[in-house]
């Protein structure tokens, strides 16, 4: 009778970190499907390619660090990072750009910091931000929705564009609504969208994509994999701020709906800002964290140089997360008030 001498508790809730990651991946699939629906094979090829690369890089580093491969790859965190990065990239990005992005995300932003749980910055967003700064041309060459451009790239064509360096045919490219809006010049918002049906159709495509990610996010909320605090605070703040400026000057500012339904906003709010490793942890901290990201997104979108701002906003707030954690600690049972900061 060999009795096990283990410390309490002796029971454990089923469910592992790997399961959490798998659910997040699953929740992102409707978004991916919508992207494929509107933009062709590109996003799917990107995603598969990026996930494969991510697993590959992770495996190499684990090998170098002499860690058991199966155990660590089984947490699916690398796969998720690859997927999230791919979802944020333009649909027909040349393969080498994607490779650089995934490399930076997995090797530099994650493993060099010590692997899962140790990285201060969201790896996918580090990869994305680095690409955006280094290769602005490639990173802003978006395809238009197929129904708008009318040009459909076959699967083979898509592969050729991505891997053979053929370049995206001009007929296929189209600026994203956010970019269009940024360069609308003297036109008012209404005039801009009234300009052409194409633009409006483009806008609708993006709204559909965001709706898909929103659905995925709601699934995560229902499964209690994320809490409402970060996405709620983020979206609410963005809504309020954009609403304020839209109310003050509707001709020059995008409506709250416009802001909430374009770009990577839902992907960012539910899948990226909620990355537990790099976000604030306490509920109060999460509220501040999410609200600050929402505010930063609006500021950068409106007055910054980049059309979208999810990556930079998230990274900036990643930087502040430990600080937020120290100052938003819950009040422990039996204590009059929460401690603030940290004394040494």
């Amino acid at each position, binding site marked *: *009778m*060999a*009795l*096990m*001498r*283990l*410390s*309490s*508790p*002796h*029971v*454990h*809730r089923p*469910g*592992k*970190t790997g*399961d*959490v990651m798998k659910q997040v991946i699953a929740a992102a699939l409707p978004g991916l499907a919508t992207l494929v629906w509107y933009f062709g094979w590109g996003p799917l090829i990107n995603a598969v390619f990026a996930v494969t690369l991510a697993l590959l890089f992770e495996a190499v580093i684990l090998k170098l660090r002499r860690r058991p491969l199966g*155990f660590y790859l089984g*947490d699916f*965190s690398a796969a998720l990072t690859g997927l999230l990065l791919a979802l944020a990239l333009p649909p027909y990005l040349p393969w080498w750009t994607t490779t650089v992005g995934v490399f930076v995300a997995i090797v530099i932003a994650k493993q060099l910091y010590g*692997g*899962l*749980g*140790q990285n201060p910055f969201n790896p996918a967003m580090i990869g994305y931000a680095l690409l955006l700064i280094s290769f602005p041309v490639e990173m802003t060459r978006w395809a238009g929705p197929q129904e708008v451009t009318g040009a459909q790239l076959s699967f083979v064509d898509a592969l050729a564009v991505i891997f053979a360096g053929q370049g995206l045919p001009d007929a296929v490219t189209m600026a994203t609504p956010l970019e269009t809006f940024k360069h609308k010049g003297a036109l008012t918002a209404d005039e801009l969208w009234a300009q052409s049906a194409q633009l409006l159709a483009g806008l609708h495509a993006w709204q559909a994509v965001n709706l898909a990610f929103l659905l995925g996010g709601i699934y995560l909320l229902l499964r209690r994999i994320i*809490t409402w605090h970060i996405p709620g605070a983020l979206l609410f703040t963005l809504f309020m701020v954009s609403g304020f400026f839209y109310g003050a000057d509707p001709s020059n500012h995008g409506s709250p709906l416009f802001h909430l339904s374009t770009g990577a906003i839902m992907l960012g709010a539910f899948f990226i800002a909620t990355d*537990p*490793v790099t*976000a604030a*942890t*306490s509920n109060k901290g999460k509220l501040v964290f999410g609200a600050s990201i929402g505010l930063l997104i609006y500021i950068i979108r409106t007055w910054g140089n980049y059309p979208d701002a999810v990556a930079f906003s998230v990274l900036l707030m990643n930087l502040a997360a430990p600080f937020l*954690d120290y100052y938003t*600690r*819950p*009040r*422990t*049972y*039996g*204590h*009059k008030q929460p*401690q603030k900061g*940290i*004394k*040494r």
Partner: protein
Amino acid sequence: MSKIWSFHGGIHPPENKQQSLQRPLEALPLPSRLVLPLQQHIGAPASPLVKVGDRVLKGQPIAEPTGFVSAYLHAPTSGTVVDLVDHSVPHPSGMTAPCVVIEPDGEERWIELQGVDDYRSLEKHELAERIRHAGIAGMGGAGFPTEIKLHLSDDHIINTLIINGVECEPYITADDMLMRERADEIIGGIEIAAHLLTPTHVLMGIEDNKPEAARAMTEAARRSRIDIEVVVVPTKYPSGGERQLVKLLTGVEVPSGKIPADIGIVVQNVGTLAAVYNAVHFGKPLISRITTITGEAASRPGNREVLIGTPISDLLAHAGVDPNRLTRLVMGGPMMGYALGNANVPLIKTSNCIIAGAADEFPPAPPAQNCIRCGACEQVCPAELLPQQLHWFAKGREYDKALNFNLLDCIECGACSYVCPSNIPLVQYYRHAKGEIRREQAEQRKAEQARIRFEARNERLEREKTEKEARRKARAEAAAKAQAAKKDDAVTSAPKADPEAALKAAKTAAAVARTKLKKAEKALQIARDSGESDLAALEAEVSAQQQKVAASEAALKAAESTAPAKTPDIKELKLAAATARTKVTKTEKALADAEAKALPSAEKLRSSLATLRSKADAAQHALAAAEQSARPAAPAEATAAATADLKQLKSNAAILRTKLKKARKAIEAGDSSAELAQQVTELEPQLASAEQALAAAQAQQPPHTGPDLKALKSAVAIARTKVKKAQKALDEAGDNDDLRAELAQLQQQAAAADAALEAAQQATESP
């Protein structure tokens, strides 16, 4: 129905309570051996009242408490004490501890039991004493001696009595069974507790997964003569935690580091109260309890009434546990219980559950992954801590940060570990960190004490050295002067050139004579004690020495009268007085001892005590006189010395007091090593004597140095006026050598008076 509050977090693990509720309560057959650990409670282990070979009756006390926080232990059945050994006891570490082993004779012969019919007629402390004599310790798991919680000191006014029938841990149904079967006993116990504590509210919490128990209790409560409110609380782990239950039922939180009694609340477990009832009404000590035996390896799970001390293996056999399936044996619940290394340990007063777990029921924990800061742990922590941060700090050995994040408020409920998707054994980290912190703090305390001791020793050595040096110098000087005096005497019989030196010499001579006398006396004493033969010679020596002393003292007196009034050596006198006093106390002690033991030496001691007392008095008088006379001359010095002494005494007393307080506190907090108790008993008389000394010193000390200062001031003023007058006279008389000399002298005197005043002022300014 009163309002139910809620606490943060909590979890809903599978309850697994049904398995052990299928069969009625059964009694376990009498085991062939009972092993009774001397410590089954929090506090100091009990000390045995029996020896190997003693026959004991059922219910006979076999061990008694050794301190305030300790408990009686009784023989669970009649039989023979066959051993007093270290036996493995239920403990997470699998350690062994002293146990009484009883072999039952199967006759179950009780000692005579004495219950009380009307406990209200008893004094409260008598009632508490009865509970104490029944050896009852909290049966919910902690094992705190019950009467202490029921008979609190006057600084705790209790307004709410909470009865814990929550039993939130999965698997355990012992309290559930008890409430169903013996609701009236519990109510009886509650009435007694309420009588002792006089609370305004009596609340009983039961989880809503025990409807039958809640029904039984509600009905029984209705029949009670006091108002007992049975509150059904939602099922959530850990609602049964003392602090969580207090929050649930009253909405208030027990402040960190405090106990519920500090906010007027006492929490008692249902099992404990049933035991109290039996102890008071029937005089029955705590010798059995209800224990749940369950788990997949048990084919007949259920609740058993077991005798305290029953080996777990007996219980397992009775429940049909398949040894081949058993992989984990848990004492307590699956959340907070600990795994036992073998079944060869006894059931004790706090054993509410034994889980015989099979491999598929309790699989080995998967390897821990990295923390992904998912916050699941934080969402469930009932103490509202940040378990993930605590984990980082514990892992990184950053204990001060962990303390800052309130690690010590963690109740080790295991909710965080339960939900952690990365399977991190969080509670294990916290236990380790807490252990380390306690160890560090203990070490710090020790180091601090060692430092104080070391410094005190250094100081003492230093003092002794300077005193020795001073004595040596004095001796040398005296010798030289005596030499000179002799010469003077020889040369001329004119009045002594230096009366002071002569005085000193006389003093030394007297001292020498005294020491010699003392030595002789001692030798005589030793000889007497050991029955030496040469007593006569020694006695002669003593008397010779006595004569010498007398002579030298006479000489000394003569010298003193001839010598100008000079400051007597106050320090020396003080020393003498102190020595005399110590001698008196020592002798007193010896006398008391001797009297107690009716030794023949008592008579002698009594007489010597009398002489010593008179000597001490004389010394004290001399000292007082010297101080009186010294005051005008050198008050500053004297008061400064006295102040210093006083200070020393004060700090001594203070140190002792804090030490005592600390020790007491530690004991109250549940640390109850025999060492501490010992320390307390040692410290108490020390403190008393220190305080006495202090009081004596304070009485000796002039109440205020004010008058001295005044005297000095007036002296200064007088000296100044004199100077002025002389100056005037000189001015008027023109050049006059005599006057000038006088003036110079007066000026000097004035300066001296000034200096004395200043010194005195400084001394009084820094008390």
